[in-house]
């Protein structure tokens, strides 16, 4: 198993953002986390990569317990991520943004960017790019960081429809290259088309986990989220 989340809980004051959450991610798959707003999806990501520390439970990454490690240690262990709101280093060039993930030649960087359908040059200042382009640079940066598991928080948000379609291809290609991807997504067509596994989260708890077909037929999921 690539990632195992076991009985994890996190509360802020009296409110549980994540409660007794258990699920797993198989190696070489694309797994999507879906759920209504406030279901705890982003909190879950922040727990997995160490920005938050869980109150209870454990995170096991490739048979190694990573609960309590700092974000940079988890990154070095092999988990790379993007954020819901793209985080680029706005005063740095696109080249420097990417070099922070990995030492590489310009040709390698350009190849990675080409895959992301990024149209500007490496010397552009990241803060001058459109938001959609910043997201692509962030995604390129996350894939460049040597990793075994990629966490993507709403990769399609703020990206134009044409690129959104390309994004499905990009993610499938990444999977073919051996990446394991865990993503948060609201676009159901996108999720159902791309995922091997779906984890449905509601009020911080896993409502169901399974193939897209199984999840779509699950009465509890229909009631809580997808609608009848």
């Amino acid at each position, binding site marked *: 198993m690539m990632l195992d989340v076991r009985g994890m809980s996190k509360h802020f004051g009296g409110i549980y953002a994540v409660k007794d959450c258990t699920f797993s991610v198989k190696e070489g798959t694309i797994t999507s986390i879906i759920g209504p707003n406030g279901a705890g999806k982003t909190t879950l990501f922040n727990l997995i990569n160490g920005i938050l520390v869980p109150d209870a439970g454990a995170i096991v990454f490739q048979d190694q317990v990573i609960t309590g490690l700092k974000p940079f240690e988890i990154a070095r262990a092999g988990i790379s991520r993007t954020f819901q709101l793209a985080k680029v280093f*706005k005063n740095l060039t696109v080249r*420097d943004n990417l070099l922070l993930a990995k030492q590489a030649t310009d040709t390698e960087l350009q190849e990675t960017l080409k895959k992301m359908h990024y149209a500007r040059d490496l010397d552009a200042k990241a803060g001058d790019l459109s938001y959609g382009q910043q997201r692509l640079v962030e995604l390129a940066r996350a894939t460049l960081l040597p990793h075994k598991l990629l966490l993507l928080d709403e990769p399609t948000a703020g990206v134009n429809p044409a690129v959104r379609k390309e994004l499905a291809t990009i993610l499938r290609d990444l999977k073919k290259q051996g990446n394991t991807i865990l993503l948060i997504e609201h676009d159901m067509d996108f999720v159902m088309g791309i995922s091997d596994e779906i984890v449905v989260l509601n009020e911080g708890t896993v409502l169901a986990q399974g193939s897209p077909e199984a999840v779509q037929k699950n009465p509890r999921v229909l009631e809580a989220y997808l609608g009848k």
Partner: protein
Amino acid sequence: MALLGYFTHLGILVCIYAILAVSLNLALGFTGLLNLGHIAFFGIGAYVAALLGLAGLSPWIDIPLAVVIAALVGVILAIPTARLKGDYLALATLGFTFIISSVARNWTSLTRGALGLPGIPRLGSISVVLAFVAGFALLCFLVVVWISRSSLGRKLQAIRDDELAAQVLGTNTFLYKLIAMGISAAMAGLAGAWYAHYISFIDPSIFSIPDLILLIAMVVVGGLASVRGAFIGTVIILLLPEPLRFIGFPPTLIGPAREMLFALVLLLILLFRPRGILGKVDIS
């Protein structure tokens, strides 16, 4: 000859303050650390060099020791404040300046308090001093240029722009902040040690807040994260008020006129070039 001496004196001050400005720019402009303790590192360097010099140590030993001790203090200050950001870091480090200033004022058995330390040995004629401080200023500038172009500089600038994003790329941002503060404080200590050996008298007014504000003005006017900007800012802020001495102002008016000039320069910069003369970065 008197005029030559005057210009040499200004040259020495420009070099010493340029070292201070470029080292503050390393912390503030490149790493995003609004460190108001910088003037304390300068004062610590000056006091260490002065006390050891007065105790009979050679300047070639007391100046390096001042640098090392200032660097250590910089790292020690960075450890508890590394988690603070923006205004909170500014407040905590300003508190540090007050503490160090208070120690210098009250530890009279060591520092003679407000009486200050006179008779710090000089290092030869003022042209010799100018040659040395100019050399060290050049060295400090080259070090900061080298850092800014290295992968260390890239990491520091990433921390400035988005610390969390730097962490998820595997950067131990805590460690890098300590490195930045240590190098920055070491250079400030160097400037302080030379200042003590040049002026040959120091007292606790070396930690003054107006001087700290001037120092920050040098960095802001020159431009954040610009090495040449730090030099230009130093020259402008230090030399701009000098002509006031020659236009026949009564001495009582020179002080206030200086303040007005600084305010004017800062206002003009903020209105017309908010990033400073050579600045390229925005810090939120």
